[in-house]
């Protein structure tokens, strides 16, 4: 590089780094300002303290901060300023408005009195301007109640630097978020400003410190600054997450090992609604009818979640929480273009009228594959699917509306549809499939105080089949249709009995209907029911216990007859210090057999032997895959330093893994299959493995916003999987799981105009054991060991706010670390560059 060029670039970087007022992780940075401000106020340094609170509010508006600013002004003897901020607070329509209004009235009265006094002959003004006494007995009672609730809030508040005074008033009502899975706006709206709140770990809003599982939250800001275009890419930042992209629209995500083609052990939810496709046991990420711009945050539970969510929440839960209707911009347009024929556009609109709030969104996206397995025009291979170059395409729309009748009484309706095309990579001898169809949902929620009724319908219908098939060979292209109906009734109640209890109870019913052509035979239908209960018992102040239990009734679990799956969980939380929680938990979880695993009768052509097939059969007597997990964790927050820490160590014991058996010869009289006109080489059935796998690992993550303008996220995970039966060389799950992963992300955001983000995710080498027909004799199926080299995924984004709060342009580079594969049978992943324009008029 020439010196002049280097100097220019260095100069540009310096200019950028020095530009304006900078922000890093907004929540951490705002929290740091808030904590420092409250500390200064407690030391009666009102002016400096208020400035810090204002800075926090500017970074990330939170109504409770306004309340505290108002109180500080009031305590500082500035009633006029206090009145102004109180009025701003009331304008946010806080739940405790009725309590705050008398204060405002009193202040107004005080100001009037002051004006009158000023007009009157001079009086003694030496006394400090204090709020007038409450106007009535009722107001006094309200304030007393307020103080009592404040004390509780303060107990949960983050640490304040040593000082004589407790926090001088947090908003009592504190905009406590609605409990439940759909508390989409719960993040940072808790009583404690800028506290990280999660809803997935306990199906109610709570501080991350109180979550009974290791939890990672990816915020909307993380999403935006990352420049990521797919959901799985975002999950690389989660400690212990194993993200394996085989195609540009096809990724498999697992947590703490056991990833595979068709990863089926992590439950993916969108606002509590499952996106796990039961017919195959996977999440088709590209089919989800939600755009990244609609997401408020993603909560990832790293560990078993069956105690609350039932089947398939075996290794974890990914809950994608969309922005609550009416809480976003009135209109926002985004347009993206880039290499790989990438084009995307989206529109989001939020609105509100009275008690009605809505969010409407539409979007389109398309992108080519990173690489193709075969060229076109080959004499031996026929390309199937809508477009051999296309990696993913989707045209989606969604509408979400919510009507609030009164506090705690509301109705929500939402629906969405995505006309999508993408790839999936099925197991066994099958290779990459196209899937071209429609994914739709409708959801209805009713909240009546402690009772919630949640219903939804999921639908997917599509054509699907191998993207490449030998010419002249029988085709496996087929169509499928899946419908899932779900209803859930939840009840939540707090009570005191030897401590404070927070009780959650729920019942659930689910009907699944899957029609899948030659793969499953006739229409398959299953009815599932479940009951769960959870009690969060705060025994004494530093110690609490969370006990959960769920029982699921599955129609096949008892050797083909209806059976029960029990999923208990117990967690102990110990908080010896403010902002530090130690966690110990034991849990059980399960994955139910998919429709494919239970019912399939698929004759797979043997490549190159047109008269032969291999029969893959389902097994209705499968036991569920079971997990027993033990976990120790520590979450520590250092608000003044802008640091969050998360450490976890675990041991997962996995039994009854479901896999395909070796191909067994059929009796000679059963070899010919008249349906396909081919001879069956043998049959391979889904079976429970005898081996028991033990995964041990540790994860550590740190998030820092040490100084204005710089945000850092670092995480590392180590894991080792062993088998009690298989040697290290023969153990698929042991070799396929990368032993070491490292993630580092850096963001720099200038409030004025510029944003930078770069992240890198390293995954160590692994070895994949896959089935392949032998090259010399395709009728022999071999287990082939495929080494996969370590790889690093590097993404970067540069954003520029061309018009403040209105127009942003960004340039994003993905997979800048160079070409690599994340699975031996997947695409060779190439660098891509995108440009994005976001307009918020």
């Amino acid at each position, binding site marked *: 590089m020439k010196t002049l060029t280097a100097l220019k670039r260095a100069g540009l970087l310096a200019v950028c780094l020095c530009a304006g007022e900078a922000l890093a992780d907004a929540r951490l940075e705002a929290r740091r300002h808030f904590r420092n401000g409250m500390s200064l106020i407690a030391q009666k340094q009102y002016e400096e303290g208020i400035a810090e609170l204002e800075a926090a509010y500017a970074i990330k508006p939170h109504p409770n901060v306004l309340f505290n600013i108002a109180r500080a002004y009031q305590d500082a003897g500035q009633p006029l300023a206090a009145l102004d901020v109180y009025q701003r607070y009331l304008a946010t329509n806080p739940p405790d408005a009725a309590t705050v209004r008398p204060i405002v009235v009193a202040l107004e009265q005080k100001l009037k009195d002051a004006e009158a006094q000023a007009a009157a002959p001079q009086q003694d003004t030496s006394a400090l301007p204090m709020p007038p006494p409450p106007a009535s007995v009722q107001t006094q009672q309200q304030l007393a109640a307020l103080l009592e609730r404040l004390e509780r809030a303060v107990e949960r508040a983050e640490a304040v630097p040593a000082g004589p005074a407790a926090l001088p008033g947090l908003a009592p009502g504190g905009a406590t978020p609605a409990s439940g899975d759909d508390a989409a706006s719960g993040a940072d709206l808790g009583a404690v400003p800028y506290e990280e709140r999660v809803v997935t770990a306990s199906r109610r809003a709570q501080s991350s410190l109180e979550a009974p599982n290791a939890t990672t939250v990816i915020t909307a800001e993380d999403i935006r600054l990352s420049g990521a275009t797919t959901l799985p890419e975002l999950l690389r930042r989660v400690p212990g997450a194993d993200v394996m992209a085989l195609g540009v629209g096809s990724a498999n995500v697992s947590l703490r090992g056991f990833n595979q083609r068709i990863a089926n052990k992590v439950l993916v939810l969108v606002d509590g609604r499952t996106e796990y496709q039961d017919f195959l046991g996977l999440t088709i990420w590209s089919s989800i009818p939600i755009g990244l711009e609609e997401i408020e945050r993603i909560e990832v539970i790293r560990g078993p979640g069956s105690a609350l969510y039932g089947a398939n929440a075996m290794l974890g839960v990914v809950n994608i929480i969309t922005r609550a209707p009416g809480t976003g911009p009135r209109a926002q347009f985004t347009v993206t273009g880039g290499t790989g024929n990438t084009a995307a556009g989206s529109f989001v609109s939020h609105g509100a009228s009275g008690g009605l709030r809505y969010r409407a969104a539409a979007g389109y996206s398309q992108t080519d594959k990173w690489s193709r397995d*075969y060229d076109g025009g080959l*004499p031996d291979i026929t390309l199937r699917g809508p477009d051999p170059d296309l990696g993913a395409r989707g045209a989606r729309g969604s509408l979400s509306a919510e009507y609030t009748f009164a506090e705690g009484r509301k109705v929500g309706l939402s629906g969405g549809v995505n006309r999508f095309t993408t790839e999936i990579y099925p197991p066994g001898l099958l290779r990459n499939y196209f899937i071209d169809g429609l994914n739709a949902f409708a959801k209805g929620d009713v909240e009546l105080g402690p009772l919630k009724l949640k219903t939804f319908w999921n639908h997917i219908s599509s054509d699907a089949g191998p993207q490449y098939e030998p010419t002249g*060979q029988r085709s496996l292209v087929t169509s499928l249709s899946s419908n899932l109906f779900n209803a859930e009734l939840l009840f939540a109640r707090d009570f005191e009995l030897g401590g404070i209890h927070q009780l959650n109870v729920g019942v659930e019913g689910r009907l699944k209907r899957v029609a899948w052509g030659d793969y499953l035979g006739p229409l398959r239908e299953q009815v599932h029911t479940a009951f769960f209960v959870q009690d969060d018992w705060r025994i004494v102040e530093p110690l609490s216990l969370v006990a959960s239990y769920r029982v699921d009734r599955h129609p096949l679990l008892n050797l083909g007859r209806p059976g029960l799956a029990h999923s208990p969980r117990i967690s102990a939380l110990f908080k010896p210090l403010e902002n530090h929680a130690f966690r110990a938990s034991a849990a059980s979880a399960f994955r139910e057999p998919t429709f494919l695993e239970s019912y399939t009768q698929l004759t797979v052509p043997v490549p190159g032997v*047109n008269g032969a097939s291999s029969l893959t059969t389902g097994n209705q007597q499968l036991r569920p895959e079971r997990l027993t997990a033990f976990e120790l964790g520590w979450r520590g927050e250092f608000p003044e330093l802008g640091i969050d820490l998360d450490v976890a160590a675990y041991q997962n014991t996995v039994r009854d893994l479901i896999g395909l058996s070796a191909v067994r010869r059929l009796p000679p009289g059963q*070899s010919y299959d*008249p349906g396909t006109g081919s001879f069956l080489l043998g049959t391979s059935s889904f079976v429970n493995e005898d081996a028991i796998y033990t995964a041990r690992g540790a994860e550590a993550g740190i998030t820092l916003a040490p100084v204005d303008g710089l945000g850092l996220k670092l995480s590392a995970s180590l894991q080792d999987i062993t088998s009690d039966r298989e040697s290290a060389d023969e153990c698929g799950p042991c070799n396929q799981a990368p032993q070491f992963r490292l993630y580092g992300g850096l963001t720099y955001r200038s409030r004025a105009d510029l944003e930078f983000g770069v992240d890198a995710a390293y995954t160590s080498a692994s070895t994949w054991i896959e089935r*392949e027909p032998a090259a010399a004799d395709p009728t022999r199926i071999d287990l082939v060991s495929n080494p996969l080299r370590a790889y690093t995924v590097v993404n970067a984004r540069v954003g520029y706010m061309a*018009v403040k709060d209105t127009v942003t342009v960004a340039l994003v580079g993905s997979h800048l670390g160079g070409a690599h594969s994340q699975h031996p*049978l997947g695409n060779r992943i190439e660098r891509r560059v995108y440009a994005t324009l976001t307009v918020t008029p």
Partner: protein
Amino acid sequence: MSRPTLSWKRAAGGLVLASLLAVGCESPPVVPTADVRQSTRTARIDGHLVVNSRARGNVVVFLYDANRPPPPQGTGRPITFTVVPSERVFGPALTGGSAGPFVAPFSFSLVPAGRYMLRGFIDVEDCGTEAGAYCRHPDFNPWYGVTGEPNAGDVGGAAVDPTTGRPLVLEVATNEAGQPQPLTGVTVSFSDAARVLRDRPTFQVAQGDPLMGSGPKTLRLQPLVIHDGVMDQRPDGFAVSYVDANNDGIPDDANNDGIPDLWPRVVVRKLAADGSNLLDENDLNRDGVPDVGGVDYVRADTGAVDGQPDVVVLAAGLVPDGPIAALTDEHGNPRMEGAIVPELQVVVRPQALDARVPENPVPLRELPRGRYAVVLIQPSGQTWRVPNELAPALASGLGLPAVESQAFYLEVP
């Protein structure tokens, strides 16, 4: 509020420029994955079956390497096969007695460049009308040696030169880039004239002593009727005939030893060392090609190994007295149409040969120790081999009837 429109225009312009620079319109590169199939270059052979027959049944077509032709020309095994179901061949005439012609497409996928031959047969399902005829059910099964060939009543077919009637050698050629090109429009003909007359030459070795000594060993082969489970072989003896490759009506004597050449032919092939299976030595993957790195024996002529894996056979042939007597009429003239004999005697000489090049077998210095299989080959191409999957140790696990005599092998101690 005034907005910095200049910045807006710059940004928009920059975005358009960046987009123009960034947007790529090229197709994704083609990059094979670790799937071994993607690293092979292949084409296909397809065409039509033309059936002129009253027989009904699925049509099985085999693809052979022309350099390793099937019996009776050689001992090659099919590279691959395809099945065209009877419904697709005969359509509405499936239940009628029409002789056709019936035409149906067939295809062989993923065929590498090379020279090939196509053979096939109709796996007949019908009941003969002649006296004593019995019903034949489809009994072909490619996964077992004992069920993998046509039987009496089946109708043979091949891709043949329409003018000479000789088997065609089909070539899948490559273009300049080395990419194999598809071979299309191939016709495989089936006709009642090629109906298989006899069952396979199923036999058992009457003598129980399997040990090969230092001198010639004679084996007495007797026909074996097997009508059990999926097996239905009912030979009434051994069909013997003179070899008359040039169809001149005079028995051939290829080695000029004064003894006319006879059908069936006999091959005594060395088996792999693992006594639990039936694989030939140096052909563990069953592709008919000597395995790279296979066993190499010292040649008799050079006293050294030749660096190539050997296809070891023992010199063997029919004891001609019985067959020739049966093949000679009362006037001393050869019965060129053949005859049936109740027993065959096979003499195995203590001479091992490397038959990697069948036309030029190379004598080996010593008799390689181990097990040897005995194979009979009829002029129809039907074969029978002992030991086979009917050996009791294997049969029960495979769902085949157990026949004790089919466990026989010749052993060189």
